[in-house]
C-alpha cells in the first residue's frame, strides 16, 4: 500500500510539473496583438515616391532588434510635459541610400505605439495615425528623420510619415507586401510599396 502511494505521488508530481510547464505564458509577439488606431492629423502626406524621398532625411534598409521598450503615455509629467505612448528599440542599418547613416550603425528607433494591458488582462496595441508596428528581425526600407527628446536622452530616429515610411523587404517567396491596417491608405501604400521595392530592393 505504501509502495502504491509512493507511485501515485510520483505520477502526480510528474503530471503537475508537465502541466505547469505548458502553462508558462510567452510574451505575445507584436504582430499578433490587436491594434487600436488613434486618429491624427498631418501637415502633409506623400502621394508619390518623389515626395517621400524628398521629405525624408534618411532612406535606409535596416532590421529592428528584439529589444523593444514600452513607454506608456506620460500625462502631466512635471519634467517632460505630456507625451503620447511610444516604443523604442535598436535599429541596425544594413544599407543606406540617403542621409548620414552608414551600414552597421545602430540607432535608437522610436515608433508611435505602445502596448497596453487593460483591467481585464487583455493586451493590445495603441497606435497613432494608422501606424502598424515593425516586426523585429524583418528587414525594411525605412524613410526616417532624426529627432531629439530628453525622454530618450538624446537623438533618435522616427519614421517620416506614420503610414507611408516603412516597407518590408520581401523574401524570395513572398510577393505580397505586408500591408498596413488603415483601409483608406491601402491604395497609396500598395502603390508606393511597389515603387520602393523596385527601386531599393534588388
Amino acid at each position, binding site marked *: 500500500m505504501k509502495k502504491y502511494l509512493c507511485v501515485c505521488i510520483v505520477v502526480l508530481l510528474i503530471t503537475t510539473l508537465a502541466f505547469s510547464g505548458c502553462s508558462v505564458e510567452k510574451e505575445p509577439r507584436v504582430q499578433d496583438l*490587436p491594434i487600436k*488606431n488613434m486618429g491624427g492629423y498631418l*501637415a502633409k502626406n506623400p502621394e508619390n515616391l518623389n515626395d517621400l524621398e524628398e521629405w525624408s532625411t534618411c532612406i535606409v534598409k535596416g532590421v529592428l532588434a528584439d529589444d523593444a521598450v514600452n513607454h506608456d503615455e506620460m500625462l502631466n509629467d512635471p519634467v517632460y510635459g505630456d507625451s*503620447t505612448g511610444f516604443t523604442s528599440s535598436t535599429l541596425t542599418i544594413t544599407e543606406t541610400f540617403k542621409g548620414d547613416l552608414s551600414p552597421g550603425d545602430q540607432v535608437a528607433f*522610436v515608433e*508611435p505605439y505602445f502596448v497596453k494591458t487593460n483591467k481585464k488582462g487583455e493586451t493590445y496595441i495603441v497606435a497613432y495615425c494608422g501606424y502598424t508596428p515593425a516586426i523585429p528581425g524583418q528587414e525594411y526600407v525605412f524613410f526616417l528623420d532624426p529627432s531629439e527628446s530628453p*525622454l530618450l536622452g538624446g537623438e533618435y530616429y522616427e*519614421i517620416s510619415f506614420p503610414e507611408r515610411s516603412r516597407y518590408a523587404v520581401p523574401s524570395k517567396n513572398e510577393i505580397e507586401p505586408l500591408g498596413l491596417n488603415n483601409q*483608406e491608405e491601402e491604395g497609396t501604400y500598395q502603390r508606393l510599396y511597389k515603387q520602393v521595392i523596385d527601386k531599393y530592393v534588388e
Partner: protein
Amino acid sequence: MKMRWNQKLLACILCISISGCLAGHAAAQDQSSLKQNVSSDEQIIAQIDLSDFQSEGISLIEETVEEENVDDLEVNEIPEVEQGEIIIIPKEKNENQILSRATGTDLAISNMRAPNNTEPLPNMTDVKIVSTIQNLGSTTISGFNYSVYMDTQLLTTKSVAVTLGAGASANLNLNIKNRVGGSHTVMVTVWLPNGPTETNTSNNSVSKAFRWQDAVSVRAYEISGSSKIEPNVDHAYEISVANLGNLDGVDIPIKILLNGKMLDGTARASIPARKILNFAVNAKFENSGGTSLGIYIDPQHTSADIDPDDNQLSKSIQVLTPEQSWGGTWRNSDGISVQILDKVKDLVAKENFRISMDQIVSSIESWNGVASGVSFGEIWVSDTNDDVGKDIVLTKGSILGAGKNVLGITVTYDENGNEVDQDGGRLKDVFVHSRITLEQDHLLENSSAAQAQTVTHEFGHALGLRHPPCSDTAIMRESTATAAYRILEHDEQALQETYK
C-alpha cells in the same frame, strides 16, 4: 449570394446633382433650338441639362460644367491604319518613268492619292491611300521601313520586305479609317533599315491634305472619383464626354447607368467640336456592396454621332458598410463638455502659434449645429493641468515617433477606460472620455489656418469621425494638404449618419 440587377437598382438610391450653366447660358434654353447642328458661324457653348432627372425625383444639387479642348488632353482619336498590299508596278505600266538614275542607293516616295474615293472621304470606313515607292538608285533594295503621321501625330511604323530592283516602283497601299471628320494631312516617310546611306533623303517623305466628311463623334471619355465610399453621403464624380468630331454636337442624349442599368431620366448635352465637356455628378448610395456608376451617350443612336462603339463607360464602386465608415458615438452627445488644460495657454502664448484661445474655442464650436443630438456644451479654459472629469480634455504635448508632420492626435476611451479603435469598424462603441493632444512643436511651423484646422479636425475625431475613405473634400481628410479649412458637406453628412 448575388443580387439581381433589379434588386440592386432598388437597393441603391442615386442622387444626381448637376447644376449649372455657363455664363449667359440659361438652363432653360429652348431645346428645339438645339435639335440641329448649328452653322459654323454660330458658336455653341458646352452645356448639359439634367432637368429630366428632376421629373424622375432625382435631386439636383450642384452644377459644374466646364469645357476643355480635346487637344489639351491625351485623347486618342488616332485613326486606324492598316497596311494593304505592296504592289510592284510592272515597267510597262510605270507612269513614274525614271529618267535619271542615281548612282548608289536612293529610296523615294511620292504621289500620295486616294484613288477609290473623292473628297470628302467617308468616315468610319477604310479609305485606301496609295503612295508610290521608287528605287531611284543603282542597287537592289530588299525592304524598307515607313511611318505614317496624321497632322504630325505618329499613327504607325512598320517594316516591309519587298525586292525592288534598280528603277523599280511599287505602290504602298494604306487603309485609313478616320473617326473624327474634317481636313487632315497624311504624311508617310520611308527609310532603309540598317542599310547603306542614301544619296538623297529629301525625297523620303510625301504628304497630302485630305478632307473627310464633317462629323460629330462623341465619346464617353472618363469618370473620375472615389471607388471606395461611405453609404448615404453624397460623393462627387466628374464625368467627361468628348466630341472628337469637327461638327458641334447638339442636344446629345446621355443616360446615367447604375449597375449597368439605365435610369429613367435623360440628360441632354451640347458639346462643341473638338471639345470635352466635364460635369460633376453627386451620387449617394444607400446599401453597401459593389456597384457601378456609368454613362451611355446617345444609346438610341438618334444623334449624328458617327462612332457609337465608344459611347458607354462605367466605374466600379465599393460602398462600405456603416461599421467600416463611421467610428463610435458619445453616450451623452448633446452638450459634450470640454476642458482646455492650463498648459495649452503656454502653447497659445508662443510667437509662432498664430491663433488665439478664442479661435480655438470657435474651432471647437464650429461642429455645433451640424447634426442633431450632438454638440459641445461647456468649453472651459481652465487654470489647472488636472483632468477634472470633463468629457474631453484638450492638451499639448509631444507625439513621439510619429514624425515631424504630425500636428495632433485624438484618443477616445470607452466606459472601461479602454482606448476605442477608430478604424476597427465598431460603430456601436460608446465614448465616455477623450483626450486630444496638439503637437507642441510641429504646429508652430504651420499657418494660422492649419492650426485652426487641426483643432477642428481633432474634435471631429473626438465626435467619432474618421478620415474619409473616399477622395471627397472634407476637413476630416488626413492632412492639411488635402483637407478643407472648414467643415464641409461631406463632414456634415458623415456626422449626421454617425448619430442617425
